[in-house]
C-alpha cells in the first residue's frame, strides 16, 4: 500500500489546515509561475510551465525507494518500467500496456515463467543505452534499498528472497540476454497479478552501477517523458521535458506537453487551496485534502476546474477475531449494524464516499448488491444493542486504537461513541502517527479494534485481500489485523490469486461473491472509500488532464488552456 506521507500531522496538520486564507498581494510569493505563450489554435498546446503545490514532500524521488502518492506521481512519468498503465481516465486507466518492453509478457510453464523483450534503441536521459540487464540491476537495487513493496517480489520471484538475505549475490530467477534484449523471470508459484508488479516504477531499469543507496537529491537517470532535476528536499523540485523520449515512439505513452513542471512544498493546505483558487499556483496536489472550511467556496467559485475523483482507498476499522470481544461474531455484526456510515463522511467534510465492502467502487469485484448491514445513511442501534445483550457482552471493555490526525481522530471518537452506545465499554488510545501502523500491526500491542486504511498498489483485488488472508498474518508488520482465518476465503483466494490481471473480468462475479461474503461475515467495519481532488488553476485545461486511477494526476497529459 502506498503511504500517503503526512510529514507534519497531528497538531501541525491542524494548524496547517487552519491557517492562511490569503491571496498573494504583489506577486512576490514563492510560487511564481512563468507562463509562455500557448500555441494558438491547434489540437494540443505545447510548451509552458506549471506549478504544483504539494503539502507533503515525497519520501524520496528515487524510484527504487519512493513509496508514496507524491513520489509515484513524479516517478511514473520519469521512470517507465517494462510494463506500465494506460494513460487514461477511469477503468481504461487500469489496463496494463507495454512500456519499455515490446509487448505484454508471454506466460508459460503453468504461470511460472514470464518472458519479455526489451525495445531496441532505448537510451536513458543521460544518453547511455538501455540494456536488458539494467532491469535486473533495478530489481536488485530495489531489494537492496528495502523498497516498501519489496515483499511483493520476495514472495514471487525465485531467488529474490535469498538475494535480500545476502545469501546469494544475484537473483537466480531473472535471466537476461543483452544481445537480443530478452528477459526471462521465473516465479516460485503462479501469481496472476505479476504484470502489475512489473508496472511499478520501482523495477524500472536504471543504469547498472547506480549507487546502491537512496539518492533523494540526485535521482538516477531513467527513460521517461520528463527528467527530475533541482531537488531541494522538503522545499521543491522540477521536472523538465526529456528531449530523447519522443524519438522512441512508444505507443500509448504521451511525450508530454508542458516543458517544465515545478513542484513546491507548501505545508499549509489552506494556503495551497487559496493559491490555486486565485490562480497563483496551477494545481492542488491529489495527495492532499481540501480543507473543510474552503470546500463550499471552491465549489462555488471554481466549480469548472475542481472535482473529487473517487480512488481505490478503503477506510475501515479492524475487529480482532483472535480475542474478546470480537471473537464473537454477534459482537462484530452489532458494530457493523450500529455505525452510520454517512456520519464518517460528514466528519471528513464530505470527502469520502460511504461504503461497506472491502473492495472499493470501481474495482473489479465490488459487489453491486445492497449492503448486508442496511442503507449507508442509517444505523440500527436497537438491534445492535440486543445482539450485544444476546452475546452476554454488555460492559465488555474495548480499547480503540487511532491516530490523532484529522479526520481520523474524529472518526475514532465517533466510532468509540457508537461502541459505547450499544453496551460495550470503549475507550480510545491514540498512538502517535509515526508509530501507529507498526504498533497496531504488532503482536505485543495486539489491539482489539482500531482504524486502518488501505490504498491500492495495483488494480487487482488480490492487493486488498492481503487484509483478510491468513497467510499474511505475522507477528510484526501484520496486515491481517483482524486475524481473519477463514477456510472459505483461503480456498477462494487460492484459485483467484492465479488469474492474470488481464483476465480479471472473467472472474468478476467470483470476486464479487467473495467480497459480499467477507462483508456479511463482519470481519471488518468498512465505512468508506477515498476521493482525491482534481483541482487546477484556470491556466491548465482540465478536460485534457488525465486522472489515473493508480497514479492520480498524470502530469504528462497536462496542457495550458488556450
Amino acid at each position: 500500500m502506498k503511504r500517503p506521507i503526512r510529514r507534519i500531522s497531528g497538531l501541525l496538520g491542524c494548524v496547517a489546515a487552519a491557517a492562511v486564507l490569503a491571496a498573494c498581494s504583489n506577486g512576490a510569493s514563492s510560487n511564481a509561475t512563468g507562463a509562455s505563450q500557448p500555441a494558438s489554435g491547434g489540437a494540443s498546446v505545447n510548451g509552458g510551465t506549471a506549478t504544483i503545490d504539494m503539502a507533503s514532500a515525497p519520501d524520496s524521488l528515487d524510484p527504487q525507494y519512493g513509496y508514496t502518492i507524491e513520489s509515484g506521481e513524479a516517478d511514473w512519468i520519469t521512470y517507465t518500467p517494462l510494463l506500465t498503465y494506460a494513460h487514461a481516465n477511469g477503468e481504461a486507466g487500469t489496463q496494463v500496456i507495454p512500456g519499455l518492453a515490446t509487448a505484454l509478457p508471454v506466460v508459460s510453464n503453468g504461470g511460472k515463467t514470464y518472458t519479455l523483450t526489451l525495445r531496441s534503441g532505448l537510451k536513458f536521459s543521460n544518453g547511455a543505452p538501455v540494456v536488458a540487464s539494467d532491469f535486473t540491476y533495478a530489481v536488485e537495487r530495489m531489494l537492496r534499498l528495502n523498497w516498501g513493496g519489496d515483499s511483493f517480489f520476495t514472495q514471487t520471484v525465485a531467488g529474490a528472497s535469498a538475494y535480500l538475505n545476502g545469501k546469494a549475490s544475484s537473483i537466480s530467477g531473472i535471466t537476461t540476454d543483452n544481445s537480443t534484449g530478452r528477459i526471462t523471470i521465473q516465479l516460485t508459484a503462479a501469481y496472476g497479478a505479476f504484470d502489475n508488479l512489473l508496472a511499478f516504477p520501482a523495477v524500472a531499469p536504471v543504469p547498472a552501477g547506480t549507487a546502491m543507496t537512496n539518492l533523494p537529491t540526485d535521482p538516477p537517470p531513467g527513460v521517461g517523458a520528463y527528467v527530475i532535476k533541482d531537488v531541494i528536499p522538503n522545499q521543491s523540485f522540477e521536472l523538465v521535458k526529456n528531449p530523447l523520449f519522443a524519438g522512441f515512439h512508444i505507443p500509448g505513452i504521451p511525450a508530454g506537453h508542458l516543458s517544465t513542471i515545478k513542484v513546491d512544498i507548501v505545508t499549509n493546505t489552506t494556503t495551497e487551496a487559496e493559491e490555486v483558487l486565485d490562480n497563483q499556483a496551477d494545481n492542488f496536489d491529489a495527495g492532499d485534502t481540501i480543507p473543510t472550511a474552503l470546500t463550499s467556496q471552491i465549489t462555488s467559485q471554481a466549480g469548472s476546474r475542481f472535482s473529487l475523483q473517487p480512488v481505490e482507498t478503503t477506510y475501515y476499522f479492524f475487529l480482532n477475531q483472535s480475542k474478546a470481544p470480537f471473537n464473537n461474531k454477534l459482537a462484530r455484526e452489532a458494530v457493523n449494524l450500529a455505525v452510520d456510515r454517512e456520519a464518517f463522511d460528514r466528519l471528513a467534510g464530505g470527502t469520502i464516499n460511504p461504503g461497506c465492502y472491502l473492495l472499493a467502487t470501481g474495482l473489479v469485484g465490488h459487489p453491486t448488491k445492497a449492503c448486508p448491514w442496511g442503507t449507508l445513511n442509517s444505523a440500527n442501534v436497537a438491534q445492535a444493542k440486543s445482539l450485544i445483550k444476546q452475546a452476554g457482552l454488555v460492559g465488555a471493555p474495548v480499547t480503540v486504537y487511532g491516530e490523532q490526525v484529522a479526520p481520523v481522530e474524529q472518526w475514532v471518537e465517533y466510532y468509540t461513541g457508537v461502541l459505547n452506545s450499544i453496551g460495550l465499554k470503549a475507550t480510545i488510545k491514540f498512538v502517535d502517527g509515526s508509530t501507529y501502523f507498526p504498533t497496531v500491526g504488532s503482536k505485543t500491542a495486539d489491539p482489539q479494534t482500531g482504524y486502518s486504511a488501505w490504498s491500492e498498489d495495483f488494480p487487482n483485488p488480490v492487493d486488498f485481500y492481503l487484509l483478510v488472508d491468513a497467510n499474511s498474518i505475522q507477528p510484526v508488520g501484520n496486515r491481517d489485523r483482524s486475524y481473519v482465518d477463514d477456510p472459505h476465503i483461503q480456498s477462494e483466494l487460492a484459485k483467484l490469486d492465479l488469474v492474470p490481471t488481464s483476465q480479471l473480468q472473467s472472474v468478476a462475479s467470483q470476486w464479487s461473491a467473495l467480497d459480499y461474503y467477507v462483508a456479511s461475515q463482519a470481519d471488518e467495519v468498512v465505512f468508506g472509500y477515498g476521493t482525491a481532488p482534481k483541482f487546477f488553476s484556470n491556466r491548465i485545461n482540465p478536460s485534457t488532464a488525465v486522472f489515473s486511477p493508480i497514479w492520480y494526476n498524470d502530469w504528462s497529459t497536462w496542457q495550458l488552456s488556450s
Partner: protein
Amino acid sequence: MALNQGLPRADRAGLLLGDDLVADEVIPGISPYRLAARRLRRDRTALGFGCLFLLIVAACLLAPVYSHDVAGIGPNVNNVTGTIQVNGRSVNVVSLQGIPIGPTWHARYFFGADTLGRDVAVRLLYGGRTSLAIGFMAAAITMIFGVAVGLVAGYYRGVVDGVLARLLDIIWAYPAVLLGVAIGTSLALGGLKIGPLTIQGNSIFIPAFLIGFVYIPYVAKPIRGQVLALREREFVDAARGLACGNVRIMVREILPNLSSTIVVFFPLIVAGAILLEASLSFLGAGVQPPNASWGTMIQEGLPLLTTSPQLVLVPGGMLVLTVLGINVFGEGVRDALDPKSTIRLGR
C-alpha cells in the same frame, strides 16, 4: 512615652520598654495579616475579579447540573447525524459538509455544536474542570520547584549553582514535544508504574507533571538572578551577623522579597500550562479525547476558524477571563500584604 507617640499603631504592637510601659497602656496590636485583609476589602477591583474567578470555578464544578438539567446532553455524546429544531425548522446539527451549527442562545446548544455534534457550552464547563486542575497543578509544581531551585542556586552559587544552572539549561533546551511523545506513546500502551503507584494512561497527573516540569527553568532562572542580587543586600548581612543559618536566611529574608515575582508569574504559568496541555494532548500525553479541555477545544476548533469562529473564541474567552481574574486578584493580595504599598491604595 514620648518615644512611642510618633510611631504608627501597628508598630507599637509587641514593643516592650521595661517598667515605663504601664499595663493599661498596652495597645492591642493588629497582626499584619488582619491589616492585609482590611486593605484587601477596600480594593474593590481585586475583589471583583476574585469573584469572577470564583464564579468561573463554581460554574465548572456545576457542569453536571448544567449538562443534566439545562442542556440535556452529556459532554461526550456525539450527534453527528442528528437534527434540532431552530425557529420551527429542522436543522442538521452538523451539515453534510461537516460544518456544525452556531450558537442557538437556547438551552440546547447554547454556544452551538462542534464537529462531532457535541454541545460546546457543556464541554466548556466540563473542560474547565480539567483545564483548571491541570493549570493549577502544573503552576504549583513549577512555582514550588522553580523557586526552590532558583533560591538554592542563587544563594549558594559555586558548584551547586553550576550544576543546577546547567540542569535547568538541559531541561529548557529539551523539546517538550519529544518528551510528550515518548511519555505519551509508552503510556498509551501501558500506563506508568512507579513503585506502589500506578497511574493510568489518561490520568491528568501526567500532563500536569510534564508541563510543570518543563516550565521550571522559566521561573528558576529569573528567581536565581534576583537572588544573586538580593543576597548581597544589607539585610542579609545583618541576618548573618545575627548568626542566622543559611536556610533561615533564604526562607525568612530572601523569599519574601520574591513575592512580587511569584505572584506575577503564577497566573501567567497557569495560562501557559493550559495552552501547552493542548499541544501535548495531540501527542497522547495530555487530555485524551473524547474528554475536553479548553486547550483541546481551541485546537479542534482551529480548522473551522473562518466558518465557525465561536469554536475558538468561546474557550479562548473563558481562558482569558480566568487568567485575568487570577492575575488581578493576585496582585490585589500582594499589594494588601505589602506594608509600603501606598501607591496603589489611594484610589
